[in-house]
């Protein structure tokens, strides 16, 4: 690794470190963010399992990866609000004037946002396990599931940074956030299998990155399924696309 690459790599990791240090100083947000997903897996899933025939044997286990992504993606999508705040403060101006390439700012912040969001994986799976959910006992597959969460939320955080660049004000940003997050959740396979969805909704789900994220994680931690290449391909296309657009549009955030 040459000096330039090392510097670029360090600057990206520095932003992740910044995020982890912030969580370390104030972990309350992680806990408060977890309340809703915990209710999904400990109350909703248990009740639904007894009431509705979804063609799924163990609904609590089934829904857990979906709830992980509902919660983590919501945090990732909300990360852009921090960029809006940083636009109003001087942080972003200082970052834009620092020697690191603009792309690294987006990649670094996207990775930082996704690492912050990924904490939900541990909390949700632990809560689901407490009410009887069964996951793989293979630590490598559990770790792979965690890495999928980080990987997917890089794309969602990039999408959020893009929205922050275009929307610019907190109010507009919050408005668009609400318009995106819940539809993403409900038009994916997070709560129910694709096969029971109406045909038009199935088509929409195929264009929803959350579908592939949930499918990959469900495959890894519920069914010990190793072949997730198609999911990874779809998620890579999503990540590359949104990182590229977010990098291109970053300059708009300051204008």
């Amino acid at each position, binding site marked *: 690794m040459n000096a330039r690459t090392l*510097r670029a790599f*360090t*600057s990206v*990791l*520095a*932003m992740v*470190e*910044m995020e982890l*240090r*912030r969580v370390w*100083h*104030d972990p309350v947000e992680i806990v408060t963010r977890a309340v809703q997903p915990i209710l999904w897996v400990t109350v909703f899933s248990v009740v639904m399992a007894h009431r509705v025939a979804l063609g799924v044997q163990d609904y609590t286990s089934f829904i857990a990866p979906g709830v992980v992504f509902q919660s983590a993606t919501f945090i990732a999508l909300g990360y852009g609000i921090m960029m809006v*705040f940083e636009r*109003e*403060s*001087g*942080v972003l*101006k*200082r*970052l*834009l*004037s*620092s*020697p*690191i*390439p603009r792309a690294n700012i987006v990649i670094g912040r996207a990775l930082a946002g996704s690492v912050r969001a990924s904490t939900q994986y541990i909390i949700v799976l632990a809560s689901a396990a407490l009410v009887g959910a069964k996951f793989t006992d293979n630590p490598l597959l559990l770790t792979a599931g965690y890495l999928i969460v980080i990987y997917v939320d890089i794309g969602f955080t990039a999408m959020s940074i893009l929205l922050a660049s275009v929307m610019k004000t907190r109010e507009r940003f919050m408005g668009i956030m609400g318009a995106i997050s819940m539809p993403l959740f409900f038009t994916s396979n997070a709560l129910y299998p694709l096969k029971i969805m109406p045909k038009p909704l199935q088509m929409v789900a195929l264009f929803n990155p959350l579908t592939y994220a949930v499918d990959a994680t469900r495959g890894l931690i519920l069914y010990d399924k190793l072949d997730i290449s198609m999911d990874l391909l779809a998620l890579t296309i999503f990540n590359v696309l949104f990182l590229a657009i977010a990098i291109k549009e970053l*300059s708009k955030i*300051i*204008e």
Partner: protein
Amino acid sequence: MVTLVTLAVEVRDLVKVYSGGVTALNGVNLTVEEGASHAILGPNGAGKTTLIRIVTTQIKPTRGSAKVFGFDVSSQGERVRELIGYVPQEMSLWTDLTGYENALIYAKIYGIESSRRAEVVEEALEFMGLREASRRLVKTYSGGMIRRLEIAIALMSRPRLIILDEPTIGLDPRARMLVWESLLSYKKEYGTTIFFATHYMDEADRYAESISLINRGKIIAEGTPLELKKTYGVDKVVLRVGGDAERAKEVLSGLGFSAVAGNNGEISVVTKEPATALPKIIEGLYSADIKVLEARVVEASLDDVFIKLTGRGISEGEERERVREVLSTRGMIRRGG
């Protein structure tokens, strides 16, 4: 013998029109020599921050060029950013981290090698007098400490040019003095060029070796503080006399001076040469049996220069509003992280 001067900043015919059609800069020309301390002075909305944003490569100009040590800000942004340290007007710290953590994260972002990173961070904090407070969360810092930390961070990469946007806005006089003492001491030690925007006349007067006055997106005058005051300002001799001020005015008029009586009983005599005028004035008034109770020389200020050039001073109300705005943003961010 020809001495080659290196230009730290060179701005030519710079125009910036924002997407809403607002013209922030309208043909700005400006040069800053290496090693100088140069102020861009003007009221709120004059174009100071836009100029700084272009020079720091945050935004691109609509027309014209800006160079930093010969590198073009539009096409060689990365090279420019390697040479500058920048302190924006708004707070640029993560308030929910400690001072040390902020400095460390920025050291990594600036690409300071890991082998000397800890030393550089400690040195910068020590230099700005923040070593003891460095393990505290930034949200517990005073406004002056926050500013010194921001400057410490900007200095970590040993920039050849440090650019500050309103470096002491909202600070009390003692905190302002501390900030400037540290900056000037750094400049003396490392020969760093300082380019700063301010609306504080006294700050530009005291700490800048050269000044560009900006108004409505145009540079309206340039020079050292003394040159500007000599060229555009006028000194005054202010008198308090025993007896009739009107008669004193007549006597002074007879001596060839233009005198104005104020409401407070004081008489102001405008003069380009107060040192030679003062004895003549006192002598003339004594000869006419008018007692001079008090006489003092009031030098021209940059405010006078600004009024002379633009027909208006910097509106205090407007500036107070701006200071309040900046402070409220800082306060809000300090609370909300």
